[in-house]
């Protein structure tokens, strides 16, 4: 009797182990399956094969609803949609649902930030295509707590042709110029402000004690007509000179100047005027 009981006990332990192993195996197989799908989708995304990648991600989300990769899959799915023409609205919704689902996951912070930026891009694109209410999504983000999102919304707003609307970006752009330490961002903000409100930029530059409101002036006159007439803050001088038409840059080089030398000479003296004359054209560069 004891032997029978002991055999039964052994059998039940064995069965339990077997069941546990098979459950683990099934879980492992599922984990492998969703990971494999995700890897395949990412390679397709890398190669910009958006529709095929989206299919893989749809499969992952449908077959493995509890997968730890769900958040990332939602993000990449929205990315795939945003790259397919005519699917902007779906993409926007996709990003919004990812943000909701990943709100608490700190490891997804980068992807959440990127989703906010993508929403701004998509909303701007929809606005340009005549879907006016979508501009709200950009406007709202001018007050976003994340400064990357706030800055991006302001830069994007500055491209809107209706100046009255574009000027909503002015406070954020001014803030970037005044407070941001990154030179690259400050330069971008200056250009954006120049596009939207040159007067606001002027008062800002004049208020800076170190700048003494220096201003680069650049004129190109061909056959009596001004083909270039630019007044730009000194901080953007190098970019403004680089942006000159290739033909004019070639003329400057021909006369023995390069852009660095021009900047050096102009920086030396406030009163210097560089005037390069050719048969039918004149290039004038000076600083005020």
């Amino acid at each position: 009797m004891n032997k029978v009981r002991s055999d039964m006990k052994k059998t039940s332990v064995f069965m339990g182990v077997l069941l546990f192993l098979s459950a683990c195996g099934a879980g492992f197989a599922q984990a492998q399956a969703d990971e494999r799908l995700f890897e395949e989708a990412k390679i397709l995304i890398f190669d910009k094969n958006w529709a095929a990648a989206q299919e893989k991600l749809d499969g992952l989300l449908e077959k493995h609803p509890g997968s730890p990769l769900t958040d990332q899959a939602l993000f990449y799915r929205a990315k795939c949609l945003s790259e397919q023409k005519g699917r902007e609205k779906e993409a926007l919704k996709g990003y919004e649902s990812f943000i909701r689902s990943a709100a608490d996951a700190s490891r997804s912070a980068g992807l959440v930030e990127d989703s906010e930026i993508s929403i701004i891009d998509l909303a701007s694109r929809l606005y340009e295509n005549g879907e006016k209410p979508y501009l709200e999504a950009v406007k709202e983000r001018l007050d976003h707590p994340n400064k990357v999102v706030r800055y991006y919304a302001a830069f994007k707003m500055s491209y809107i042709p209706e100046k009255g609307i574009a000027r909503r970006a002015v406070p954020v752009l001014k803030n970037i110029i005044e407070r941001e330490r990154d030179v690259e961002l400050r330069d971008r903000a200056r250009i954006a402000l120049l596009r939207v409100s040159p007067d606001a930029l002027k008062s800002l530059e004049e208020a800076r004690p170190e700048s003494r409101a220096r201003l680069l002036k650049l004129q190109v006159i061909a056959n009596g007509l001004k083909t270039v007439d630019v007044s730009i803050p000194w901080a953007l001088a190098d970019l403004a000179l680089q942006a000159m038409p290739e033909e004019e840059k070639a003329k400057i080089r021909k006369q023995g100047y390069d852009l660095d030398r021009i900047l050096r000479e102009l920086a030396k003296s406030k009163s210097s005027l560089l005037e390069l004359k050719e048969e039918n054209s004149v290039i004038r560069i000076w600083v005020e």
Partner: protein
Amino acid sequence: MNDCRRTRKNLAAYLSGELDGPHAARVAGHLDGCESCRRELAGWKDVFEKADAVRAGIGETMKSVDWEGLSARIAGRALDQAEKPVRESRPAGILGRLFRPNLGPVYAGIGLGILIGSAATYLVLQKPSLARLEGRSYSASAEYLDRVELAMARRDALDYLDKSRYIILDFIQSSPGEPGSAQAVLNSGMARDLLARKKYLNPQLDKRQMAKAKAICDQIEMLFFELVQISGDLPEAELRRIQRFIEDRQLLLKINLLKEELEQSEV
């Protein structure tokens, strides 16, 4: 018939809003019932619209004229005219008396005076003084600002590629048993910074001139997305997978080639 004549006489004033209330109402009333006058009105409208278009064009042209240089050019032309030899002719009557040979020194003096005056004017005007050129406000055409942004995008893309290259090199050089430098890159948050930077670059990279740069920068961005997802220690298998990926896609070679092209010219 008389009504038509009176109405047509007032059509231009009617269109430009110069007629007072009763007169305007009379013209409007007549137009309601007279097709021929309505056709005449349509003709006037056409003329007005074209005049508006021309006015806008004139405004643009006036703005683009180099007024500072104009005086110099006029003076230059005057000088050219003054230097041209006077054609010999046979003077007669009053002219003949005016150009008597004994008045030659007087005319020579006047001619010399004109020449010196013109030359002085030319010298004064040919180099515009800074005071006259000064205008304190900022301005640049939208087209020029686009060019400035493109120049900035080229500069920033070069910087982005440079920094990305260092990160990728660190990953390539780390050995699976000792992922020190790759782990340091992950911990430093550099990939995340570059991801943020790329966002600001995107609008310019979307432009035609930067299409090639965009393709490579997008690939680097995808790689960085991968890296920022890794939290804690970098598993050996993950390091090997990323290394294989970088090598398969020849990312470093592509970055170097693109940098070269960006430094040389527009991409």
